[in-house]
């Protein structure tokens, strides 16, 4: 383990398998705690590039139940797994009931598993602002595979695209309205379609409908989304689901698209971080800086318009090295 000693103590504890330190680091990331920055910086180069599997899909289709079985399957294969399960925060109270853990079976004494519930805290797109960095810390902690369950709002869960290496979209028989959902966004992000609840009637036709849809959309990347049928009550299809995920991960390597995807995700992340910082600083300055306050006053007085004001405010991006 190269240079573990040069790591800050918290980062060293995380890499060394201290689960409490790991849990607290995730909280710090969620809270925007200044202590999180140094830990994230120190861990970035240590976080192995492990598969990050996003599991999206409408409310109640069985995402958590599937993840629970997938964790069991992966543990059987000797792989360690971390799960981040995101649920929505109330826009009114800011609070949240995080219920995905209910489906997660015990494993109280298995150090090869880690489960973390996460509230979206107002972030759109089905994951929280902290999800990506939390996943990275989990990778640095040594987990072989990271599974991320999105909020479950269906068509808007597309932010998983910016986080996951493989995206699984879960659906259930009787697609009906869900075909609309698919057209509206989730369809384009799916690397694997999972038709769950195949113990219910209509599963075969759902898989056929889906296959027709997949055939209608030309795969730009060269990857043709796989379709897998599962049931968590029987249970069945879990090994096939993992095989499909692995097939996509292998495709990323063999086609050379993993690097491009990673590059795209990191660019998005950097832009997001800068946008957040500039936004915060600007919001702050608009209240304190006398010139900026006058500028805002003029907009309020309808002397100039918001676009003109924004152009005057446009911060320049400077590179510091």
């Amino acid at each position, binding site marked *: 383990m190269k240079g573990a000693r040069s790591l800050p103590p918290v980062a060293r504890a995380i890499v060394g398998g201290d*689960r*409490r330190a790991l*849990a*607290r680091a*995730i*909280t710090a990331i*969620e*809270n*925007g*705690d*200044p202590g999180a920055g140094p830990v994230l910086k120190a861990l970035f180069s240590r976080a192995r590039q492990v598969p990050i599997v996003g599991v999206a899909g409408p409310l109640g289709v069985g995402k958590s139940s599937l993840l629970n079985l997938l964790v069991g399957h992966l543990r059987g294969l000797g792989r360690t797994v971390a799960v981040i399960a995101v649920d929505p*925060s*109330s826009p*009114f*109270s*800011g*609070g*949240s*009931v*995080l*219920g995905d*853990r*209910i489906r997660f079976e*015990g494993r*109280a*004494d298995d150090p090869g598993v*880690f*489960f*973390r*519930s996460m*509230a979206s*805290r107002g972030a759109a797109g089905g994951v929280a602002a902290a999800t990506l960095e939390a996943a990275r810390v989990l990778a640095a902690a040594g987990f072989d595979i990271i599974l991320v369950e999105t909020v479950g709002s269906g068509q808007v869960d597309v932010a998983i695209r910016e986080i996951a290496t493989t995206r699984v979209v879960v659906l259930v028989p009787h697609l009906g309205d869900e075909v609309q959902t698919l057209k509206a966004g989730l369809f384009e992000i799916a690397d694997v379609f999972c038709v769950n609840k195949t113990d219910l009637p209509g599963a075969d036709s759902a898989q056929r409908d889906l296959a027709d849809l997949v055939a209608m959309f030309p795969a730009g990347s060269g990857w043709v989304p796989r379709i897998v049928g599962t049931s968590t009550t029987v249970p069945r299809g879990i090994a096939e689901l993992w095989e499909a995920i692995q097939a996509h991960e292998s495709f990323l390597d063999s086609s050379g698209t993993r690097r491009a995807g990673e590059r795209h995700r990191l660019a998005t992340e950097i832009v997001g971080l800068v946008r957040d910082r500039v936004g*915060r*600083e600007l*919001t*702050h300055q608009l209240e304190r800086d006398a010139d900026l306050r006058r500028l805002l006053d003029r907009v309020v007085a309808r002397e100039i318009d918001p676009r003109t004001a924004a152009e005057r405010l446009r911060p320049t991006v400077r590179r510091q090295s």
Partner: protein
Amino acid sequence: MPDSEALAKSHPIRVLIAKPGLDGHDRGAKVVARALRDAGMEVIYAGLRQTPEEIVRAALEEDVDLIGLSILSGAHMALIPRVLTLLKKNKAASIPVFAGGIIPDEDARKLRAAGVRAIFGPGASLEQIVSTAQKLARSAA
């Protein structure tokens, strides 16, 4: 830096709600979970049939500020002290534990002696539970 201000804005309290033991339903626990959510907390709802080991594991992984346990029968008299013992063993005795349910006075006394910080009987109002939870979480922070 503006960051410190954003920070001061308040971090949601994270609370684990679970019902140890094999019996019963979780209606009461769900009502409490929703009330805590409406008060702005992030409630990790672990549900029914949790062993003390699972509860403590969840509390540590989820890094909660507070644990609420729902009690329905005398069997819990063994399970709840076990949760407290396991918390101690994991150097997490500072996480406050409260309990709610139908608890005879005698048992309530024992639980308090074992370290349960607050106990709510069927007569407790949601307001009471929420404000106590807030106080406990703040005192632990």
